[in-house]
Every structure is written in structure tokens, then in C-alpha cells.
């Protein structure tokens, strides 16, 4: 089943590859249609997913026995939401790409390959396989930014590639080290997450390996001060690239920290609570502060990502039930809202070919529907109660207050700063009277554009009003992570940090 989920986009890419390059009008509709298939499969998986600890839909085929590498797939409550998010965002990203007019065939092929790779990252339970997907997806994203981006696209693509490849290179050394250790301790090499998390590591080794993995993921997230590639990549990428970059690829970092760092190196993770927490909070405040002064709408959303992902990192290293659940659900929330914001910025860019805030003003009057969607997504992003962002940020803050109270208090200011930079941007772009001639004649959203935004809007509402639809499925897995950490270290989650200690959404499932 999961194999098919990975293979379907690849087969789709092959199908698109076989169509004639000249039939430009065919490629994107075909890509959308083909990316609906994995979406359907992912929704089925979501429905069939049982809220339990075990890896579900697991598959295992040996790849090359003597090396111990395997095609080892499975999903749990931490990865399942990411898989669904990925499959939701790809058709929307393709639907937003009608402005891509040159080399459409390649564009769709790269997007579908990117989808396969991203799904692969989330479903891999073998570190070798995980690395293969983690590194391979750089290539299609590199092409998407480098070919269809704006003026400084080659520079941005190169920076993106080298920066992230640098991080994953050291992680590769870490993966090799783990496999060699497994060979020394057990007698055969293995890359399976389950095998490697049972290794007996010295504290020193664990810290080094934690650092190697954390660096790779921190660059991907990006955690301050490793974020400098992100604004370039986002500003230069085409809309579809930005949606997938912010919506899914940044989550590879937060997902990796939760899945691999906490699972494989519990002792080092406990030791790193403060370092990671402080970096996360710096990211929250710094990202928000820089976002306030951005003159470019897209850059503003990009820096807001730095700020929002800081919450996810903080929640992860709070090492409490609330923190971890908040981190997982915030992964989804950020994907939905920031994906939607990039989509909206892309729509206005298509009309005006500028992203400068100062070029706009009074758009509310001209494009009321657009303004409505924008305001809605801004509210979701700020974390207005009733919308999805509230659930995630609330859980993270509650969760981290137990273990890192000072940091939680500082982080809470990020919510206020978010309100400042987003609402101020809204004010400058949408309120008042349209002064510029170009702005007076702008067309409001078309049916196609509303269709793209509608599912995201619906999900933002659904997760805001009824988060348990997801939290119930997440909780067993995040609890298992905490159990694992408590079992392998002296760390005990301080009360009231665990489910059952206090009312936390999703608690009634226990």
C-alpha cells in the first residue's frame, strides 16, 4: 500500500514524460489528475489508520542483504498526517501553476517526482532509505526553483541545494556510524530505525550523532542561525515551489528531529532541551521581527515561516505530551496556512507582477473575495481561536511551559508579533482607498482560484473546530516517544506534562 503511495507519483511522472512536449495545455491538468490518485490513497490510509502505537501498513523487503539495507516502510501517528498533507498540497500546487507556460512537461514531472520523494521520506523506517529520499528530493526542487523561478533563481537554487546538502552530508556520516556500531554490537549491519534505537551508545557518541542529525534537520527547518537560505529560495521560487517548500519540505526538518533525534538519541535529546529551546525561541522572535520590516510580501511570509517553525521545534524539545502533539499538528497547520498564504501571494503576483507591499493598497475594495481569504488565512496563521493555528500553538505553549517556562513565556510574544506583522501587512495591502491606477482594475478571484483555496479553508476550519480528528491518531505515537525517552534516560516528564496529568486536547482518547 505505502509502496504504491510512493510509486504512483513516479508512474504519473513517467506518464507525463511520454506525452508530447508541445501539448502544453495537457501537462498540468494531467499532473493534477495524476496527483489526485495518491491523494485518494492517502485519505484511505487516514481513514483506515488505527490510533495505536505500532507502525501501520508496514512493508519490508530486503534491498541488499549483506549491507542490511531494506525497503522498510510504515506510518504512525507522527508520519501519517505529513503524508496526507503532502498529497493534499501537491494537486493544489499544480493547480496554482497555470502561469507556468514554458517547459510545462518538465515542470509537472519534477513536481510529481518531488511528491514521491517527500512521501518516501515520511514513510521510510530504514535510515538508508530515508536518506535516499531525503537527498533525492533536492534535485527536483533545485530544478523547480532554478528553471521557473524569478530573476535570481540560479543563485537561490544553488544556495538551497548546497546549504541543505551540506547538512545532510554530515547526517550521512552519522547514519554510517550507527550502522557500523550496530555491526559491532549485534554482528550484522542494519539501518532499521527499530534496530538502531536499541543500540547501546556512549554519552559522547550520542551527543556527536545527535549533533550530526540535528544539523541536517535544523538547516531544513530552518532553525536560527541556519535560516539564510530560506528567504532566497522562497522569494525566487515559483508559487508551486514555495507552497511545497514551506508546506512540506521544511517539515522534513521538524519531522526528522521528532522521529530520529528523539528516538535514536534520547540521552542527548534530554541534554539538548535548553540549547534547542533557546535556538527555537530566537527563531520565533527573530523571524517575527524581521518579518515586520519586510517590504516584500513573499519574504514576509517566508520569515513568518521561520517564526512559526520555531514553535514546532520548541514543542518537540519541550518533551511533554502537549509539546509533541502540538509539534505534529502544527506541522500540518503551518503547511495548510502558509501553503495558502503563498498561494494567495502567487495570485496577486500573477495579476500585478510585483510582491512589494508598497505597490498595493485598498485592494479590499477591488478584490473583496481575495481579501476575505487572505484575512482568514492570516487569522489562522496568527492562531485565532477556532482556527487550526490556535490548537497547535496553544498545545506547544502549554506543553513547553511545564519544562521550559521562561522560553514558553518569551515564545508567547511570537504570537503577538505575528499579529503585528500580518495585520499590518493586511492593513497596508488591503485597507484604505486604492490609489494606484493598476490596482483599481484588478480582477477578483476566479472560480479556479477559489477551488484551490476552498479545500485549504475547509481544513483550517475543521482542524480548528475539531482537532481531535487528528490528535486522537497522533497521541499514541507521541506518547510512545515519551515512553521511550523515559525508559532510556533518567528523564521523567514533569507533571503536568503527560496526557492524563492535565486536560489536553485528545486526552479523552486515553
Amino acid at each position, binding site marked *: 500500500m505505502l509502496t504504491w503511495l510512493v510509486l504512483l507519483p513516479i508512474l504519473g511522472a513517467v506518464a507525463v514524460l511520454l506525452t508530447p512536449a508541445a501539448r502544453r495545455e495537457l501537462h498540468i491538468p494531467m499532473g493534477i489528475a495524476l496527483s489526485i490518485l495518491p491523494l485518494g490513497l492517502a485519505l484511505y490510509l487516514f481513514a483506515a489508520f488505527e490510533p495505536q502505537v505500532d507502525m501501520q501498513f508496514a512493508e519490508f523487503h530486503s534491498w*541488499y542483504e*549483506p549491507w542490511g539495507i531494506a525497503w522498510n516502510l510504515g506510518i504512525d501517528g507522527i508520519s501519517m498526517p505529513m503524508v496526507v498533507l503532502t498529497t493534499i498540497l501537491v494537486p493544489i500546487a499544480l493547480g496554482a501553476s497555470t502561469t507556468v507556460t514554458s517547459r510545462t512537461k518538465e515542470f509537472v514531472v519534477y513536481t510529481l517526482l518531488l511528491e514521491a520523494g517527500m512521501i518516501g521520506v515520511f514513510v521510510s523506517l530504514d535510515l538508508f532509505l530515508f536518506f535516499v529520499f531525503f537527498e*533525492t528530493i533536492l534535485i527536483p526542487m533545485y530544478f523547480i526553483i532554478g528553471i521557473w523561478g524569478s530573476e535570481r*533563481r540560479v543563485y537561490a537554487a*544553488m544556495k538551497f541545494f548546497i546549504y541543505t546538502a551540506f547538512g545532510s552530508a554530515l547526517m*550521512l*556520516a552519522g547514519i554510517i556510524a550507527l550502522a557500523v556500531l550496530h555491526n559491532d554490537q549485534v554482528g550484522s549491519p542494519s539501518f532499521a530505525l527499530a534496530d538502531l534505537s536499541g543500540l547501546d551508545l556512549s554519552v559522547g557518541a550520542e551527543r556527536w550523532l545527535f549533533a550530526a542529525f540535528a544539523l541536517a534537520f535544523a538547516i531544513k527547518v530552518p532553525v536560527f542561525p541556519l535560516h539564510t537560505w530560506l528567504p532566497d529560495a522562497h522569494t525566487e521560487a515559483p508559487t508551486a515551489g514555495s507552497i511545497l517548500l514551506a508546506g512540506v519540505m521544511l517539515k522534513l526538518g521538524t519531522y526528522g528531529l521528532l522521529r530520529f533525534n528523539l528516538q535514536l538519541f534520547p540521552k542527548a535529546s534530554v541534554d539538548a532541551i535548553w540549547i534547542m529551546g533557546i535556538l527555537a525561541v530566537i527563531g520565533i522572535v527573530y523571524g517575527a521581527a524581521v518579518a515586520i520590516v519586510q517590504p516584500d510580501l513573499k519574504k514576509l511570509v517566508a520569515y513568518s515561516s521561520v517564526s512559526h517553525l520555531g514553535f514546532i521545534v520548541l514543542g518537540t524539545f519541550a518533551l511533554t505530551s502537549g509539546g509533541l502533539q502540538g509539534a505534529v499538528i502544527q506541522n500540518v497547520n503551518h503547511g495548510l496556512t502558509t501553503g495558502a498564504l503563498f498561494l494567495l501571494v502567487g495570485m496577486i503576483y500573477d495579476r500585478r507582477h510585483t510582491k512589494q507591499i508598497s505597490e498595493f493598497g485598498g485592494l479590499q475594495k477591488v478584490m473583496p473575495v481575495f481579501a476575505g481569504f487572505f484575512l482568514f488565512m492570516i487569522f489562522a496563521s496568527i492562531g485565532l481561536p477556532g482556527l487550526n493555528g490556535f490548537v497547535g500553538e496553544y498545545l506547544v505553549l502549554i506543553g513547553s511551559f511545564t519544562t521550559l517556562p521562561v522560553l514558553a513565556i518569551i515564545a508567547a510574544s511570537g504570537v503577538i508579533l505575528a499579529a503585528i506583522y500580518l495585520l499590518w501587512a493586511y492593513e497596508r495591502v488591503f485597507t484604505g482607498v486604492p490609489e494606484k491606477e493598476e490596482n483599481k482594475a484588478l480582477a477578483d478571484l476566479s472560480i479556479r482560484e477559489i477551488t484551490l483555496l476552498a479545500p485549504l479553508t475547509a481544513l483550517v476550519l475543521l482542524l480548528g473546530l475539531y482537532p481531535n480528528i487528528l490528535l486522537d491518531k497522533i497521541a499514541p505515537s507521541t506518547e510512545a516517544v515519551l515512553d521511550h525517552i523515559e525508559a532510556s534516560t533518567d528523564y521523567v516528564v514533569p507533571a503536568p506534562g503527560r496526557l492524563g496529568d492535565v486536560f489536553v486536547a485528545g486526552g479523552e482518547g486515553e
Partner: protein
Amino acid sequence: MITPEISWLAILPEVMLALGAAAVLLVEVQWKPVSRVLGIIAAGSVVLAAAFSVLQWAQAADSIELGATGDLVAFSGLVLMDGLAIFGRFALLAVTAFGLLAGSRYIESLGRRSAEAIALVLLASAGFSIMVAANNLVMMFLGLEVGSIALYVLAGMSRERARSDEAAIKYFLLGSFASAIFIYGVALIYAGTGEFEVLGIREFLGSFVVFSPAVILIGLGLVLVGLGFKVSAAPFHSWAPDVYQGAPAGVVGYMAAVAKIAGFVAMTRILLTGVGALDANWLPIVAAMAALSMLVGSTLALVQGDVRRMLAYSGVAHAGFILTGVVGGTTEGILFYLAVYSLQLVGAFAVAAAVSGAGNSESALESYRGLAKKSPFLAGSFTVLLLGMAGLPVTSGFIAKFGVFTEAWANGFRWLVIVAVLASVIAFAFYLRIIVAMYMDESEAMAVDVPASSRWVLMVAVGTTILWGILPGSLLSLASDALPL
């Protein structure tokens, strides 16, 4: 009088190649056929050589199973028929076949001199083939010289071009110097151990404790310099960029690949089999060479404006990666790496030859701009090959790098692995520069015509790069069986 039992099978592949070379020259003199006929003769000799190698492989497997490994030592210990030799020869033969195919347009353009080029290729392969099978160091030297001299002449085949002359002279002078250093090293090893044979040296070091191995080590150091030159490992790499750039595009890929395969197989044999007992002495030196090669190759490749010079420096970096495998101490990783890299190299130069046209050596990065529009096939193939050389996943290059890194890490050389992964990232940058030029530059490239023969080479090179990246077991299991005696 007792006639010693001669195992002809041990040298039949080389005999086939040499006979092929002779036949090409004689047929040319007698009938002056079109060069296609000469190509068929050459192909026939390569196929026969491969067929005899298959027989050797079967016999090696039988003998090892029966425990009669002595049968695999032929000609009183001059040559061996072990897995290492046979795998190395297969790689050489594959590169020869694809090299001739990729160079066929260039060879045809030589007119009546095409027979010379084909014969030189076959002779070079015969020489290097003896070199990979040699147990006796003098025999190894003979193979090295037969192969190298043929390559010097090949480098200078386009006499009308000054750059080709320069490349040939430079290659010849520095190469003969390296060979002289190599044979001097062999003499010192002989002085220290009383043995020319690799297996004998191993036995000597196994049965005696050498209190001051200085003479052996100096000899070994000189041998390493000689071989380091042939495989273009830093700091003995300075000839490579000029030769890669100056020699005729059609045959450069072949030249670079065979020298690497033979040099590394010989180095593996000497270091891992012969003086394995002294590894505490040579491991640090080889590790330093590896680190230097990776860093020098990757960083200098960044600043090149010519694709063939870039590939030369990337070859220096790859020499470093393979040396990392030598440090790792097992032949599996080295052989796999050699096999996949040499095919990628031949493929990459097939692209370079197509872009710069027959014989012409112009290969500035400029001429690759917009290639994706002019020839999607060429650009796509080149991209896969470059990503393979860069070692990105889903290509054989990743598996190859992963293999040698893991072995080096397991052998305790962690710092070297960290240098290696960082050098790989630096290397990404210049492989990407070529891809940027092909895909992201709008300016118009010249129309490119890709000969059918090059298409075949590229399809095989790209196909194996992806196949062995996804299903590495098919080649890895062969490489792990290909053990030295």
C-alpha cells in the same frame, strides 16, 4: 627435461587483445577496408577476451571451492587468475568496448590512420589487463608501460592541433618519470624482502618480523607515487587537466578510465595483499593522499571554465574517494566504485565529444549553455551522469560512495569520512554549474549532432548508473566475490 605446465587460460584474454591489434594493423595494410571493418575486428577481440575471462571466473570459483587456489597462480607466479584480476579486466574490457564506440566518430575522422588508433586502444587494454592480473611486480611494470605508452601516442593522435601535442608530450614526460619512480620502488621492495611477487611479499612479511622496514617502506612510497600519478591522485595530478583538455575528445574518456582501473587494481593488490601486514605504516599516508585528492579535486574543479578540465579535477576527487576505499581495506567497495565511475566517465566524455565535435577539443562551459533545448537527450544523459558522479542517491555513484565511506569508517578512519562527505558537497557545486548551464541558461547553444554510436554508449552509461543505483545488489555481489588471492 621437464616442461613446466603452462596455464594458457591465464593470459588468453590479453593474447586476444594483442592479436586483435595485430589483425587490425595487418588487415589495414592488406585491404585498406573502411574503418567499420576494423571496428568489428576490434569488437571481436574484446568479446573473445571477455569470453575467456568468463571461463577464468568459472575456474577461479571452482578452484576456491576445491581449496586448490594454487591453480590460479600461472606462469610460475607471474600472473594470477583471482577474482580481483578478472573483475578488473571485465571493467577494462567494458571500458574498451564503450570507449571505441564513443570514439568511433573521431576514429573515422582519422581516415587511414584509424587503424593505428584502434590498435593502440587494444594494446593499451592488453597492457593494463596484464597489469591488473600481475602478481610479479616486474610483470606489473611491463603491463603498465605497454598500456601507458599506447596512451601517450593516443593523446597525440591529432598532430595538427598544438594542444594535443602539448598534452601528449606532457603526459609522456611526466608519465615516464612516474614509471621510473615506480620501478625504482619495486627495486627497493625487492631489496627489502627478496621478493618480486606480491604473494611472496605477503608471505615474507607474514613469516618474518621486519624490525626496520625502512627500505620496504621507501620502496612502497615510490610505488605509490608512480601509481598515484597514473590514477591522478593529488599531489601527482598536475598532468591530468592538460591531458584531459588537450587529447582528442573521442578517446579521453577511455584513456582516463583504463588508467584509473588498472592503477587502482594494482594499488589494491600491492597494498592490501602484499604489504597488508605493514598497514599501520601506510594507512596514514594513503589516507592523507585520499583527503588531499578529494579536497584539491573538488575545490579546483569549482573554478574551471572548461568542462573537460572540470572532469579532470573531478577525476582527482574521485581518485581520493577510491583511495578512501583502499583505506577501508576491502576490495568490494573499490571494485564497485571503479566499475560505476569508469562507465560514467566514458559516458561523460561521449557527451563532451558530441558537444565539441570530432577531434576538436573546445569544451568551454559556454558551449553547454542551453543544451537542454538543442538536445534533450544529451543534456538529460549528461545530467544523470553528473549526478551519478556527484553521488546523489538513486544513482550508482551514491552506492559506491556509501560503500567506501562505510568501510573507511568501520576501519577507524572517521576523520577521513567526514572530509569525504564535505568534499562531496563542494563537488556538488561544480556538477550543478554544468547542469545550470544546460538547463537554466536561455542563450542558444550550437546545434549538436549526436552520433548513433555515442547514443548507445550513453544509454548504457545512464542505464547502469540508474540500475545500479536502485538495484546495487546485481553488481555488488559480483564485486564482493571478486577477492584477491
